[in-house]
């Protein structure tokens, strides 16, 4: 029963409306099987009149999911740092892309292979309310 519920929960279309935030073109990077982490990329589109924060997420494949930014320090040096949240401006969008900001999947329970699909629930906050965006993200 639980499995059926879980499956229903994650059977969602490619473009997801979760109240005010729509997620476009989400994908997870296929990484070597020895990897301890991977990253999810997507465009977050906020249809609402209020900013929405993406604070993290949950997934069966990862023990910890956090928003992470990429910093450029001149001379081609890049680094990464965790942030509390990504803010998606009211009526605006935020692009998470390779070499830039991303959703970091850590403590991988299994390393998802290319061609698989990973269920992932993003946690959002807007106007003091917590929300969830349920995604089915292809790995490539």
């Amino acid at each position, binding site marked *: 029963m639980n499995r059926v519920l879980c499956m229903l929960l994650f059977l969602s279309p490619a473009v997801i409306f979760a109240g005010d935030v729509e997620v476009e073109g989400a994908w997870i*990077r296929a*990484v*070597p*099987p*020895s*990897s*301890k*982490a*991977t*990253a999810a990329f997507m465009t977050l589109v906020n249809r609402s009149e209020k900013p929405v924060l993406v604070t993290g997420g949950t997934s069966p494949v990862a*023990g*910890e999911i*956090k928003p*992470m930014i*990429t*910093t450029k*320090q001149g*001379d*081609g*040096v*890049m*680094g*990464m*740092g*965790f942030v509390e949240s990504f803010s998606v401006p009211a009526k605006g969008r935020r692009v998470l892309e*390779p*070499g830039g900001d*991303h959703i*970091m999947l*850590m*403590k991988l329970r299994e390393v998802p292979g290319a061609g698989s699909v990973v269920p992932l629930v993003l946690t959002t906050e807007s106007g003091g309310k917590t929300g969830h965006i349920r995604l089915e993200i292809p790995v490539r």
Partner: protein
Amino acid sequence: MARTRHSDARSRRIGLILFAACAVVAVPALIVLFSMAGNSSSPWFGQYDAETHPAFDFSLADQDGKPFRLQDLRGQAVLLSFGFTRCPNICPTTLGHLAAVYRKLPPSAQERTKVVFISVDERDSPASLKEYVPFFNDRFIGLTGTPADLGTTARAYGASFRKAPAVGSDMGDYMIDHSTYTYLIDPEGNLRVLYRFEQLPETGRIADDVLRVLGTRASGRQP
């Protein structure tokens, strides 16, 4: 009829506005692009160094633990980048693009091209590189070495790296901020072309540069 004329005039007007807008955006964009290339007549996609500078001949260990020197690759083009295997974003992006560059080369050029990834993380071993680098292409070479040798090598290429605390995560004690340039070394061992991270998605143009250092670029494309 009047309505149609009106809408024709309007679409012409919109067309003009769009054309003007494109010109306003495109002209400065082209100027920026050419000035970034340094020389608008340069056939090279990356930043090309016309002077001959021998690339530093590092002496490190490959993913099988065997000694490996750059000199071992004389006669071949080398695409070199620095990183670390716990790197979940920049390094896989870089190696993914370099794998695409490699796939775009004809087999004869692949035989004469090596992609080399040097880990600047002392936690990496030949074994961890062996699990990581072949994932992108089983012909790619992963190298590591003593902290002193890695430091010397990185400095010689103008690359830099430093440990950065990974607060509140499972990324180990630290991550590494590192240079994200990719270097193209010619078959004579000279450092020829530098690519910024943002240029790497242009895999076809990088493949053209590789063919050019191999001397197999079609003559029609030469300056």
